């Protein structure tokens, strides 16, 4: 366990090597280094997990102090790692999924310009993400937090020759910056009032010094929530994620689906004591999660770009995690994070195979009949889609999502409204994902297949497909393990909604969704068109397609006024003061140069007059 520091250090070393020397290496070497360091990091974290399970450290947590980072007065954040059940579970999942996606990228990115740059960024991302997860203080966590944001920016704009990609990257960076600013202010508030940024100390002090619902606790929790909302693409900062799909597909799978976007979930779970002290904010977390999961579900229904469907699906699933956090089902949120990491990475990788096979075609209405042509992608998509929708008993997604839906109804912090809304979300989920599956893999072949995946792309997909199925079987054990780090769900007294009832309803909603998708998109395709042709339906369709007009709204409320303001003050007001100074200097210069006329007698007169004046001053004053 002393080797814990190597888990972030290895990918970081890989990133440094590749970014400095990668451009002169052969592609094979680049791939070896890029995949090797992440695989080593994953193997190491698995070994550490095994040791952790066999002989849990005292207190259920292991802290590795590396060095004192900053030493200014009271402010002494260390460079130290903190390993407990929560960070261990997240780290193992992140490094493991990252390894598979790196392996996939070896083939997916083959022949691309900037091959070593890609792997350098990806390694840097893994290093930052693991730093974020293992940090023992909030400053180091923030360091990793910004690191993953940077890698996200770099990778969205990876194909930088198309200006649209650069714009998408900037959008992601700027929108998350809004949340990060709130996060930073939250750190100031916490340090100002509690005098430390060490996470465990913070939680202890907060519990000792603050009462439930006190103003400062609410403020701190709300500010941290702002950061989490930005990073995890929740309402109202979700608009960057769909555009982030401009990056290469493995990036979308790793950063914008499986790992980085769940950093907000991790932050809230990590700081759960603070949120317990601020019940209003925790309630807001649940409301944000619920509204987001429904809105994104509707938006996913109307998208035509295969990756955008999955992007909205990601927003929606993180909405489920937020809902779980909001009702105090901390373990369920992390459990859903894990299964989601498996099946969403799987869906993106399978989508990548489809896109590669069809000459970078993204429009699902120009796909079809791929069931025979790309069996691996089909079965992977089916496994991922079933897990996403939560097909009962045989998929991982069922266990985690069911737990959240049930918790939403059964928690003392939840309520029937949350329960109903999250069940409706299940219906939406199965509807949009099976719409996608039916359109892409069934029906007539619309675009011929040009390329089939090799082993480096197939293996990760198969492994993830298997994990999407079996990844949730040991639910009780996983939740018990997380119980060392996170408090259990506080349930309503008996008489609330039973788990079996929830499961039955969820299964019903799921089957209804599949049936509706089959009926509308396979049996009667005219129905969808009729809906879009109808004025009310058409308006709804446009509203959902544009993500409820959020981009339009932000454009009007923020972008345009700022543009107008910059236009209005294009002649800087403050500049006018300096303009006066220069005007004065220019005027004096002109006035004085009149006297310099080249006439000798004039100069002599000047000297004489000056002498007279100064002598007069000397004599009479």
């Amino acid at each position: 366990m002393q080797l814990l520091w190597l888990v972030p250090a290895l990918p970081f070393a890989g990133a440094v090597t590749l970014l400095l020397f990668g451009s002169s290496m052969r592609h094979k070497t680049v791939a070896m280094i890029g995949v090797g360091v992440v695989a080593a990091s994953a193997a190491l974290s698995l070994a550490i997990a095994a040791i952790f399970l066999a002989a849990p450290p005292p207190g259920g947590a292991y802290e590795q102090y590396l060095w004192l980072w900053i030493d200014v007065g009271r402010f002494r954040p260390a460079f130290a790692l903190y390993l407990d059940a929560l960070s261990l579970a997240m780290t193992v999942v992140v490094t493991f999924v990252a390894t598979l996606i790196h392996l996939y990228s070896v083939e997916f990115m083959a022949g691309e310009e900037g091959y070593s740059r890609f792997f350098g960024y990806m390694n840097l991302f893994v290093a930052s993400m693991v730093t974020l997860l293992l940090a023992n203080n909030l400053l180091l966590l923030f360091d990793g937090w910004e690191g993953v944001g940077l890698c996200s920016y770099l990778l969205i704009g990876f194909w930088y020759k198309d200006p649209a990609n650069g714009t998408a990257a900037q959008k992601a960076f700027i929108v998350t910056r809004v949340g990060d600013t709130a996060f930073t202010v939250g750190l100031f508030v916490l340090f100002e009032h509690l005098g430390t940024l060490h996470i465990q100390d913070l939680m202890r002090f907060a519990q000792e010094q603050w009462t439930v619902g006190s103003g400062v606790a609410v403020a701190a929790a709300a500010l941290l929530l702002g950061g989490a909302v930005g990073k995890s693409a929740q309402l109202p900062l979700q608009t960057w994620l769909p555009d982030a799909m401009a990056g290469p597909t493995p990036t979308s799978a790793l950063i914008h689906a499986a790992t980085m976007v769940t950093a907000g979930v991790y932050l809230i779970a990590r700081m759960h004591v603070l949120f317990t002290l601020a019940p209003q904010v925790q309630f807001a977390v649940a409301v944000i999660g619920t509204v987001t999961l429904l809105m994104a579900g509707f938006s996913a229904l109307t998208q035509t770009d295969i990756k955008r469907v999955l992007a909205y699906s990601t927003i929606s699933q993180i909405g489920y995690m937020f809902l779980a956090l909001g009702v105090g089902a901390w373990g369920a949120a992390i459990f859903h994070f894990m299964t989601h990491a498996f099946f969403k990475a799987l869906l993106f990788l399978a989508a990548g195979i489809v896109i590669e096979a069809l000459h970078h075609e993204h429009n699902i209405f120009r796909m079809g009949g791929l069931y025979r042509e790309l069996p691996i992608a089909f079965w992977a998509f089916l496994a991922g889609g079933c897990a996403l929708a939560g097909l009962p008993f045989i998929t991982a997604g069922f266990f985690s999502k069911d737990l959240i839906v049930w918790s939403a109804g059964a928690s003392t912090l939840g309520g029937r409204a949350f329960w109903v809304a999250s069940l409706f979300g299940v219906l939406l989920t199965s509807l949009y994902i099976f719409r996608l599956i039916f359109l892409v893999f069934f029906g007539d072949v619309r675009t011929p297949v040009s390329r089939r995946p090799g082993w480096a792309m197939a293996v990760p997909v198969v492994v993830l497909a298997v994990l999407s199925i079996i990844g949730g079987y040991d639910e009780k054990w996983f939740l018990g393990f997380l119980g060392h780090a996170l408090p259990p769900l506080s349930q309503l007294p008996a008489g609330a909604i039973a788990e079996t009832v929830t499961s039955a309803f969820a299964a019903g909603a799921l089957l209804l969704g599949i049936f509706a998708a089959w009926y509308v998109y396979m049996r009667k395709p005219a129905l969808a068109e009729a809906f879009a042709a109808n004025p009310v339906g058409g308006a709804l369709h446009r509203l959902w397609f544009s993500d409820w007009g959020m981009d339009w709204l932000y454009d009007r409320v923020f972008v345009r006024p700022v543009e107008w303001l910059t236009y209005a003050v294009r002649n800087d007001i403050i500049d006018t003061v300096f303009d006066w100074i220069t005007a004065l200097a220019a005027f004096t210069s002109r006035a004085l140069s009149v006297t310099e006329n080249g006439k000798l007698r004039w100069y002599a007169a000047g000297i004489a007059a000056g002498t007279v004046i100064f002598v007069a001053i000397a004599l009479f004053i």
Partner: protein
Amino acid sequence: MAPARDGLVLAALLFSFGLAGLLVRRNVLFILMSIEVMLNAAGLAFIAAGEHWGQPDGQVAFLFILAMAAAEVSVGLALVLHLYHRYKSVDVDAASRMKG
């Protein structure tokens, strides 16, 4: 013996005439002559002051001024010749190209 004040008043008058000549005449030769008058006014002031304090310093300074005036005149006349050669004129305002 005339009091030192009379010598100083005479020096001031001479200086003023010289200055006036310098300012009103455009002929460069007259300007040079005006400068000579002013120099000699300054020399007279030295001598008058030396007389007043009973010191020989004033007369010593006048000798220096005399030597300097000789040098100045030789340089000045050389410049005048050059000026005339270039502009075919002894009008000092003709040479006013050097200005801001």
